[in-house]
């Protein structure tokens, strides 16, 4: 049964290998492109902002005098808001994903939820701000508080966490579930001990992307009622507050050049928060990620 001409196969091999190499180059270039853009961005920000980086910058509240302005209130505001956003969005997001992938029957209701979630991903952040203002600030009477801001942010980033987690859960091989059920494990035990640990890397990728976005968002919090100039630290979840991107935005909009430099310094701090936060997530992700 000689249907394949080996000499032809060998002849074509060169072309295929070349194609492989070319595409490897293209894919590498795609990766490098992103890295280069990041490097340019970083470089521009650092050269502009490093001069204002100092201990004082972290220790001081904002001021109308650029040289003594600092990021303290915004820094802590961001930490507080994230402390609400991260757990709330994780619980809601991963919970929804588990529900949809493991519990829900594939019926119209699930399709409806699914549609909802993907759709939320495309709603502009400022509309979430309007929602937060109507619901959390006014309806639940949380006022212009960290809690209201944190909840709004959590809803904003929910879709990314849900969709990423769903994909991760879906790609856990069925035979692992079978093995666990076969031992008499209950559904929840199987999910909690087998499915989730296996899906952790994917869930974390979504979370990293989502949290990163939450750290950098301005518009929804402005609408919800975060302030722009705050000279005290929040003392509980009901405090008024500001966050770093708002502070940065405020500074960047000032006419004085010094404040724009200040904004750059603020961005550097924001980067640092981002990198610390992502590193923690990446460490966890790496711990859990293996191919099978």
């Amino acid at each position, binding site marked *: 049964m000689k249907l394949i001409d080996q000499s032809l196969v060998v002849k074509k091999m060169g072309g295929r290998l070349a194609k492989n190499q070319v595409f490897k180059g293209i894919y590498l270039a795609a990766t490098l492109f992103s890295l280069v853009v990041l490097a340019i961005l970083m470089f521009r920000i650092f050269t502009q902002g490093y001069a204002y980086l100092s201990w004082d910058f972290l220790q001081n509240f904002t001021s109308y005098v650029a040289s003594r302005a600092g990021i303290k209130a915004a820094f802590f505001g961001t930490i507080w808001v994230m402390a609400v956003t991260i757990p709330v969005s994780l619980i809601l997001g991963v919970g929804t994903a588990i529900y949809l992938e493991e519990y829900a029957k594939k019926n119209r209701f699930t399709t409806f939820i699914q549609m909802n979630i993907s759709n939320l991903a495309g709603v502009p952040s400022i509309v979430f701000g309007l929602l937060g203002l109507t619901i959390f600030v006014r309806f639940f009477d949380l006022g212009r508080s960290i809690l209201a801001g944190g909840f709004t942010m959590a809803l904003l980033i929910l879709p990314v966490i849900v969709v990423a987690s769903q994909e991760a859960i879906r790609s856990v*091989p*069925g*035979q*692992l*579930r*079978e*093995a*666990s*059920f*076969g*031992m*008499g*494990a*209950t559904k929840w*035990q199987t999910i909690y*001990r*087998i499915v989730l*640990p*296996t899906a952790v890397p994917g869930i974390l990728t979504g979370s990293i992307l989502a949290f990163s976005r939450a750290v950098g968002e301005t518009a929804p919090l402005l609408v919800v009622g975060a302030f722009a100039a705050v000279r005290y630290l929040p003392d509980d979840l009901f405090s008024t507050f500001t966050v770093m991107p708002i502070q940065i935005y405020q500074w960047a909009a000032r006419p004085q050049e010094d404040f724009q430099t200040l904004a750059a310094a603020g961005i550097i701090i924001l980067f640092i928060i981002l990198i610390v936060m992502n590193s923690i997530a990446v460490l966890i992700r790496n711990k859990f990620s*293996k191919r*099978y």
Partner: protein
Amino acid sequence: MEVKTVVKDEKTMRNNKPADAAIDKSIVYKTDNLNLWYGNNQALKNIDLDVYENEVTAIIGPSGCGKSTYIKTLNRMVELVPIVRTSGKILYRGQNIFEKTYRVEELRTQVGMVFQKPNPFPKSIYDNVAYGPRIHGIRDKKTLDQIVEQSLKGAAIWDEVKDRLKENAYGLSGGQQQRLCIARCLAIEPDVILMDEPTSALDPISTLKVEELVQELKQNYSIVIVTHNMQQAARISDRTAFFLNGEVIEYSNTNKLFSTPDDKRTEDYITGRFG
């Protein structure tokens, strides 16, 4: 749960029952006119088959005849395939496992399973074996250590892995993985063990060990084993069922089935070059 059904009922006279069923042995599993479909494709047809306590029941038959499907039905694992429909009854210790109120987790705790493809968890070797006991509430480190060691020994893999218990199970060879899965199953000391070609990936020595293990476990447990190896079926089983195209062609005492089969098709199959 402890209701014992004595064999001597009207069913004894049916065709598919072993002719010389030990009268006083209790039935663990009673399958009653079971039909199963994957979508529109019928994979099991009118299965009647009793599994007896403290016996090894072997299931043989050509590839695709429904052996895996059948034993996956015994612990309702087959339900994980969404398109599956069943009709008929399976009584486990007298209770119909298809009943709505039946607790499938309890069933699966009492009925261990070893799959056709080795499927360890992406965890350490230790955690793979300790998984079962842990989910059933055993937390004590010492007890777990003991269970892990005994189970791995039971599955004839202890010596190979005792120094790498913390390593990922995916670093094991195919046969090692399969024995690990057997160990994992033993760790919860089930009442019945379902084995889907457990030794197909094993070398003769490990196979021997597993077969010896099966003989030993038989004292306390009931075992259903799917195998392609007819010598194996002959060596270790008390009863053998021959499946063909989703039907039980013949089910009887192993000696009888291999020496004087009733059905021409059984004879053809077992007297193939490998008979």
